[in-house]
């Protein structure tokens, strides 16, 4: 009974992605009753294959996705290897929290505004250095190679991976591992690369795959940063779903399936790279390479790795300035005058902010509760059953564009689309995997001796949970809540597909404003959007500090 409860809930959260896939597969093979197409045929597939620019679009997606993920991971590891002490790591974690919460669209807008020929960097040096009173006609953003998109993805994914890697390294006996490295005569770089990073890599492998899948199918960032002739595959598919010609949905469904194929190809290539890098490390170890020279470059490399994050921060700064700018034209380095014109509309954004807030808090809290249900009643069951694991991770491993249209039909059929429960439910399926990923290992490592002591003092299971487990797990729970809230706030496509436009969030508003070139209002929306995770972060941090300040050190039996 209890075990079937675990199975049931795990399946419940994998179901939407599965239903969505079916809802996509049927029209892909020509079955779409709403357009009186009720027999299976290969027409849609043939039409899809004839899409102009299909192969360039697929290549663009594959290229940008793989490079962005690889570069994010390298950058993340370089920064890790540079951070020498655990106190420095704790500081980094606190800095990264808000950075992870910067929405994709904000970073994209920031990059465009920084690097465009008429952008901030050019304005800062014009006309003084360049002699230009008009922006030059050569342009970088968006470039045909997809470099701007790669940069944007790194700016977003590097902090995310770094945060997870830092969490993973917190559970490792770092000083001991590094001492072993030093004992073997390794430098700082090689100690990390040969001893620590492989362990961390294994721990964060799943989130890396998630980043890869996301980068391959990103839409909101691609709209602003990617080339549009042709666009990356996911945008091409979305255009099909949004085509005024309703029959275009059928080939678009094929595209959604092909997006999954592309993900599989990317995963294969990634696996190949893993093997190659693994072999290279083996070879270096075997040759006895100590790599002391590499340490000299470490500082320089980590500076480069920090650059994309700096761009994210600059983008935020630009958004803030635009929100109060009144007339800011090339080549002025700063607005001619300031006004609060755009901030006067703040009242119209507040319902959206409260929607985002409510949605994120509910989805994150419920997800933590569900994960605790699994932890107490079926931890082993989920960890041993690959099928159940797949059900939990499915929503993150299948590209969003590949199942959302089908999911929309499914929810509509059930009559619950555009309702709060449906929206919270769908947000939960995207949050749960992360929370499981954070809480399951922490729960496993919890020092059971405290439990035994409490038990011998006569505390029942509920009181043990409240008075022993919760305080012991306070850190990971708050990390899980924060990640959950940040993920929920950033969800764009799932929110518009599931809400049916009936429940809008500040993120949807910010993306729409940014995509429509309204820099001022988009700046206001972005600031408000960022406020939510910042407030949550602050509240959680204060709560931890004053409520559990003395207890967090008990973790790991130190």
């Amino acid at each position, binding site marked *: 009974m209890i075990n079937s409860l675990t199975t049931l809930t795990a399946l419940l959260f994998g179901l939407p992605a599965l239903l969505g896939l079916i809802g996509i597969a049927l029209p892909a093979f020509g079955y779409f009753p709403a357009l009186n197409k009720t027999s299976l045929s290969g027409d849609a597939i043939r039409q899809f294959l004839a899409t102009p620019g299909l192969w360039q679009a697929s290549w663009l997606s594959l290229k940008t996705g793989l490079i962005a993920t690889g570069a994010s991971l390298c950058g993340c590891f370089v920064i890790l290897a540079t951070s020498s002490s655990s106190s420095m790591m704790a500081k980094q974690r606190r800095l990264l929290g808000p950075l992870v919460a910067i929405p994709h669209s904000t970073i994209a807008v920031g990059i465009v505004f920084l690097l465009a020929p008429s952008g901030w960097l050019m304005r800062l040096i014009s006309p003084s250095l360049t002699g230009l009173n008009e922006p030059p006609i050569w*342009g970088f953003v968006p470039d045909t190679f997809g470099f701007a998109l790669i940069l944007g993805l790194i700016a977003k994914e590097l902090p995310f991976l770094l945060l997870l890697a830092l969490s993973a390294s917190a559970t490792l006996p770092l000083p001991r591992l590094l001492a072993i490295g030093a004992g073997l005569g390794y430098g700082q770089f090689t100690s990390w690369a040969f001893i620590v990073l492989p362990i961390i890599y294994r721990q964060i492998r799943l989130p890396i795959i998630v980043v890869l899948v996301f980068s391959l199918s990103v839409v909101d960032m691609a709209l602003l940063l990617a080339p549009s*002739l042709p666009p990356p595959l996911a945008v091409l598919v979305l255009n099909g779903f949004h085509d005024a010609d309703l029959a275009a949905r059928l080939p678009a469904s094929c595209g959604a399936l092909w997006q999954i194929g592309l993900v599989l190809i990317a995963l294969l290539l990634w696996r190949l790279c893993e093997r190659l890098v693994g072999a290279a490390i083996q070879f270096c170890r075997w040759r006895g390479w100590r790599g002391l020279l590499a340490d000299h470059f470490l500082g320089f490399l980590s500076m480069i790795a920090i650059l994309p994050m700096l761009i994210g921060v600059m983008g935020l700064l630009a958004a803030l300035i635009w929100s109060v700018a009144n007339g800011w034209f090339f080549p002025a380095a700063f607005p001619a005058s300031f006004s609060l014109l755009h901030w006067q509309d703040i009242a119209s954004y507040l319902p959206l902010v409260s929607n985002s807030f409510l949605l994120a808090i509910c989805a994150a809290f419920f997800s933590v509760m569900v994960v605790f249900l699994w932890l107490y009643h079926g931890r082993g069951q989920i960890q041993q059953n690959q099928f159940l694991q797949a059900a939990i991770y499915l929503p993150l491993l299948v590209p969003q564009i590949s199942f959302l249209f089908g999911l*929309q039909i499914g929810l509509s059929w059930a*009559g619950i689309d555009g309702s709060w429960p449906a929206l919270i439910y769908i947000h939960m399926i995207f949050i749960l995997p992360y929370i499981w990923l954070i809480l399951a290992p922490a729960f496993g490592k919890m020092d059971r001796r405290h439990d035994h002591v409490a038990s011998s003092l006569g505390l029942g299971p509920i009181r043990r949970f409240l008075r022993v487990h919760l305080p012991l797990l306070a850190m990971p729970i708050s990390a899980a809540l924060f990640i959950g809230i940040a993920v929920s706030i950033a969800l764009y496509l799932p929110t518009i597909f599931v809400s049916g*436009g*009936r429940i809008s969030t500040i993120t949807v508003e910010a993306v729409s404003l940014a*995509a*429509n*070139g309204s820099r*001022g209002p988009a700046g206001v929306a972005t600031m408000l959007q960022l406020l939510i995770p910042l407030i949550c972060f602050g509240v959680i941090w204060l709560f931890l500090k004053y409520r559990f300040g003395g207890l967090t050190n008990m973790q790991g039996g130190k």
Partner: protein
Amino acid sequence: MPKNSFYHRICFIISGLYLAFTITPTNAGDFNDIQKAAKGKTVYFNAWGGDAKVNSYIAWAKKTLLDSYDVTLVHVKLTDTASAVSRILAEKAAGRTTGGSIDLLWVNGENFAAMKHAGLLQNQPWVTSLPNWRFTDSKTLPAIVSDFAEPTDGKESPWGRAQLVFSFDSARLQTPPKSASELANYIAKNPGRFTFPQPPDFIGMSFLKQILIELSGVNPSLYQPVSNADFDAVTEPLWTWLDAAKPNLWRSGRAYPANYPVLRQLLGDGEIDIAIAFNPADASAAIARGELPNTVRTYIHDIGTLANVHFLAIPFNASTPEAAKLVANFMLSPEAQVKKADTTVWGDPTVLAMPKLSDAQRIAFTELARGIATLSDADLGRTLAEPHPSWVPRLKAAWISRYASGN
């Protein structure tokens, strides 16, 4: 699933109630019943939300509707109208014939044609029974009953008029090019300083149509279904024009802005010299908001520019069709139309016929300030009619197959 059937049951009850309400008023033609049925209802109005001016106008309408009629208008801001059409289709696919998520939709042209042919609109005509319909005149403005030459059949209510206008910064450009051929010369002489929103964007497609109409000498076959015409022969001049222009477009024609607000921003940033909008007052309003320098002015081509009407439609499965009709009627009222025509609010020209208004109502329109960059009605007098809607998908497909692979 018990929940499922619970919702279905509620849907049935609600649809039953609506049937009870809907049948009587339209037949009786009595708007009071509609008002009664609409009271306390919420109307989900799906409208493109990419322009701050339009959004603030809808916010004004929302407040007025709540105060005067106890109807709650919720503006669902779309990035693309076709996405709403897509959602209605998804609902039809799911068999939801009532209780749909969209009550009212801002639409025209090919989206309307697609909805009409896929049966996604209210089954019965409802527009001419609106009380404020008497202020319009389809004889002087036939476009209110014929949307891109597609008969509206009383299934969408006119909301506003639009005309393609070009804007330029008079501080940097003295004499803007006023025809397709002059524009071609301008582009050749000023590489990198002109572009248009990437088709199939609405304004991008409109620009293609404008150039095509000009180059083809207003070819009459453009106003017939495309199947009756030799598409390749008629459109040949357009492709020649585009092929010649492409290397000298902004970013060498390898990238295009996504939509007209982004295009306007490029003009503000000084990256391009000429921008396009489908609203004569757009530039003035942007100047007022500090998005364009106050030296920006507008012009139209000598032969005239594309003009059309945009509409409000009610989907077949709207949850509150009566309240949606009430909103459509309100939007057609002289009060709402004056507010909409005000440049400081939106600056969207009215669809009402001046002779049909009272003196006071007419004066309200004539007293509106025009805005620093807005042309006079006389200057905007030359218009070109929209081609038959069937041309749009063909043009779109042809543009995509020629230019979308990026070579």
